[in-house]
């Protein structure tokens, strides 16, 4: 053990000059844990925790980001920590896939930590120091999870991550609904974790050696490989919120404090994607094409489901949570396509699809955390999560509003922002599907393309509703007029993430270079070479004649035309402007209550996609004194899957309870019958 320690830390201990990048990352993790412990030390010193510890955490994120960016382009590094099981110390491996996701953790971590420094307020359930501990343990466990190179370390970190996030979710545990949300979350997380554990049980193939290296070396029989894959989909899907395992997500995200929801949505869901990639592309070999269709179908279903529900939500955070389900769905679609293409040996196309997924990972991490943080500001400024009571905040909270606008545009998948690049690449991937040798598939997949297009458009709908109802129009409540804008630290976080969204949108090529470093080892192919060949200005995965997109040119031209128009109008005519009451077809009485509500905005979706929802409407009768219209929307999954399962367990348990019915004679009878049965069995066996 001592020499293991030496081998692990010798360079780190003796000569800082020769520290590996991995060692530095471990130091960042250690620093996070230390900050967390300081939080326990200053359990209730609110100011210290907020103004010192969280900024330190942000610094850690920055360091992690820098290290990871370097590591993506570096050869893999390994290390072994002298903890874990006796024969199985923690194996760590920093390869480009891990580094890529570390970068995601880092970039989101910086923004969220900086924001959190300004966010947490006095007297919200758990003491601030404890929150600080849980928060940094959460960050550290995600980092270690991505680094883990053996099943035990992976599972430990996986569950630690779930646990830390659970405690963060129930930070304000005095509200029963928050408790139940946390309960549901941890339950599903744990079930998923057991599935993943069994998946590793298959992968280690009776060798008793749980390192990923060994799993890579095993070549499983098709049946076992399929079992491993399906278990992985079940386990990671439960964490990622794939339909029908998504039910915890819209409960837990709103329950958590906003920085936590941001981290969960932006990063934690991605760790599930990471795990799926790791198992599907790295640990398992030659995946058959139907694995791809499984992922593809799940992805399409989740994307449609998520976007439809997010379009009809009336709670800010629930809306965003469902939109996360949608984005995860798109990621799964990309991964599924990659598996399909690889199964048919079209490696460049597989690389294209996987690159699309990877780019989307980053952009979603950026804009979704931005949006969640923004809702956090709104929540604190107004104490209101219900869209129906918000409005007009762009005037009182310009910082939040304008940064959020960028996030909204990115999330709606509009050029020239981050979300669009990923969708564009994904659709490019679809365009090549006719080359698939399987007739059925190349009929099926384009329909998927249409579905993706529909999802993108609906996302736009949901986002316009979100931004328009919250920030535009007139305040629907009087007290919104004195809402306070974000504090300095919060602004820093928001700006960082907004800048990220813009950067990813305008300069996708460096990102694609990074993704290339990931796809090369996984697939043996990448698209960076061709992209590079087509010049820095154009993003063209194949050839310019085939498809190209240049965000810079795009933005440049639009801005130029706007500027030209502006100047021209000013010069040719004038710039006079008067303010007056809104005209509105000349209706005299204008009250904020005349604006369209969130429910109203969702109405067309509810009407068109009625069968997707489980709606309970109560319509007013013409004779009501004060008529009320009410509609509650639930998803069918509860009533189709979860309620029946719970009922079945309940029933079985009742049957079991009959066994323990208190009569000593009966207990003796059990023992007697057991004895007889065992004797008979033994006799029969002979």
């Amino acid at each position, binding site marked *: 053990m001592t020499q293991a320690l030496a081998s692990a830390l010798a360079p780190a201990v003796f000569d800082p000059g020769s520290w590996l990048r991995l060692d530095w990352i471990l130091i960042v993790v250690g620093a996070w844990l230390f900050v967390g412990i300081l939080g326990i030390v200053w359990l209730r010193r609110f100011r210290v925790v907020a103004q010192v510890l969280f900024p330190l955490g942000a610094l850690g994120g920055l360091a992690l980001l820098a290290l990871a960016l370097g590591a993506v382009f570096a050869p893999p590094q390994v290390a072994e920590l002298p903890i874990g099981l006796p024969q199985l110390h923690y194996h760590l491996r920093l390869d480009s896939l891990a580094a890529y996701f570390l970068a995601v953790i880092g970039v989101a971590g910086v923004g969220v930590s900086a924001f959190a420094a300004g966010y947490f307020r006095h007297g919200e359930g758990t003491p601030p120091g404890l929150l600080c501990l849980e928060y940094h343990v959460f960050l550290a466990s995600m980092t270690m999870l991505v680094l883990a190179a053996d099943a035990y370390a992976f599972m430990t970190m996986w569950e630690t991550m779930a646990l830390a996030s659970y405690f963060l979710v129930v930070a304000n545990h005095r509200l029963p609904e928050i408790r139940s949300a946390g309960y549901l979350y941890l339950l599903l997380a744990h079930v998923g974790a057991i599935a993943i554990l069994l998946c590793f049980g298959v992968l280690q193939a009776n060798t008793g050696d749980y390192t990923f290296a060994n799993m890579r070396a095993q070549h499983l029989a098709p049946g076992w490989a399929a079992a491993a894959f399906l278990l992985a989909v079940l386990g990671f899907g439960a964490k990622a919120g794939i339909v029908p395992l998504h039910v915890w997500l819209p409960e837990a995200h709103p329950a958590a404090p906003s920085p936590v929801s941001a981290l969960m949505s932006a990063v934690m869901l991605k760790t599930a994607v990471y795990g799926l990639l790791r198992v599907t592309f790295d640990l398992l070999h030659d995946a058959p094409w139907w694995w791809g269709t499984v992922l593809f179908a799940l992805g399409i279903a989740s994307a449609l489901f998520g976007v439809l529900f997010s379009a009809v939500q009336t709670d800010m955070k629930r809306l965003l949570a469902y939109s996360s389900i949608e984005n995860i769905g798109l990621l799964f679609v990309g991964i599924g396509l990659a598996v399909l293409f690889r199964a048919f040996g079209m490696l460049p196309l597989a690389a294209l699809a996987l690159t699309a997924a990877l780019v989307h990972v980053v952009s979603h991490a950026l804009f979704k955390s931005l949006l969640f943080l923004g809702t956090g500001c709104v929540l604190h400024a107004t104490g209101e999560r219900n869209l129906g009571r918000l409005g007009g905040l762009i005037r009182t909270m310009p910082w939040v509003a304008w940064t959020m606008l960028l996030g909204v545009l990115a999330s709606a998948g509009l050029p020239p922002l981050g979300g669009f690049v990923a969708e564009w690449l994904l659709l490019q991937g679809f365009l090549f599907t006719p080359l698939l040798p399987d007739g059925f598939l190349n009929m099926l997949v384009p329909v998927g393309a249409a579905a993706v297009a529909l999802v993108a458009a609906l996302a736009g709908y949901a986002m316009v509703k979100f931004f328009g109802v919250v920030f535009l129009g007139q305040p629907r409540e009087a007290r919104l007029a004195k809402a306070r804008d974000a504090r300095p630290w919060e602004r820093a976080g928001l700006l960082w993430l907004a800048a990220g969204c813009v950067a990813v949108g305008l300069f996708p090529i460096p990102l694609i270079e990074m993704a290339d470093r990931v796809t090369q080892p996984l697939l043996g192919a990448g698209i960076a070479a061709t992209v590079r060949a087509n010049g820095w200005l154009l993003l063209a995965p194949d050839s310019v004649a085939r498809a190209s997109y240049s965000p810079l040119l795009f933005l440049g031209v639009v801005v130029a035309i706007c500027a030209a128009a502006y100047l021209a109008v000013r010069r040719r005519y004038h710039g006079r402007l008067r303010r007056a009451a809104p005209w509105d077809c000349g209706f005299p009485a204008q009250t904020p209550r005349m604006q369209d509500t969130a429910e109203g905005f969702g109405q067309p979706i509810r009407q068109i996609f009625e069968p997707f929802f489980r709606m309970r409407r109560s319509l007013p009768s013409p004779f009501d004194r004060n008529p009320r219209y009410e509609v509650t929307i639930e998803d069918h999954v509860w009533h189709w899957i979860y309620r029946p399962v719970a009922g079945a367990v309940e029933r079985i348990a009742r049957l079991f*309870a009959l066994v323990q*019915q*208190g009569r000593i*004679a009966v207990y003796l009878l059990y023992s007697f019958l057991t004895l007889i049965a065992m004797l008979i069995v033994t*006799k029969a066996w002979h």
Partner: protein
Amino acid sequence: MLPQLINLLAALLLLLSFAMLSQRRVLLLIRLFTFQGMALVLATVVVARVTDQPHLYWSALITLALKVILIPTVLHRLIDRLNVKWDVETLINIPTSMLIGIVLVIFAFNLAAPISRLTSSVAGGTLGIALACVLLSFMMMITRAKAVPQVIGFLSMENGLFFAATAATYGMPMVVELGIALDVLVGILILGVFMFQIREQFDSLDIQHLEQLKDD
């Protein structure tokens, strides 16, 4: 002729077990139990004679003290003090339990057959009988609804075990014998204490009262 004597005693034990299974009255039950104890003592002595192992005499002595003298007196004392002389209603009616008992005996013999064939002891066949006694007293414990008969069933099960120990294996080593005897003794005392506690708690020894703890 001594081995035949052992077999005879074994048969007697089995007979007594049946009798106890079919017996209703507590007093008679105790008496039968005493007889069983005596039969056990005799068997031990005979085995001791056959295989002249002196320590078996000690074990016979202990058995006599415990099973024939001490325990019956304690039980008599108990039922006098707690006046539980009345009849025992069994959960299964007598003929049925007898039938089941017969089946059990056949089963036990069947199980023990291969073993008794290859054991070298004077009375290999006795193992089957001992097993049968154990199973029968188990039956009895299941079918009785009152505390005292259940305890008697428990004790007669121990008789069966002792018989197995002596007849089939010439008795366990002395230490173990002593230890077992000690346990039985303590057990009996604790039982006595219990009976009184239960009695003062529920003012009856009906086990029906002891059915409150359950999963509903």
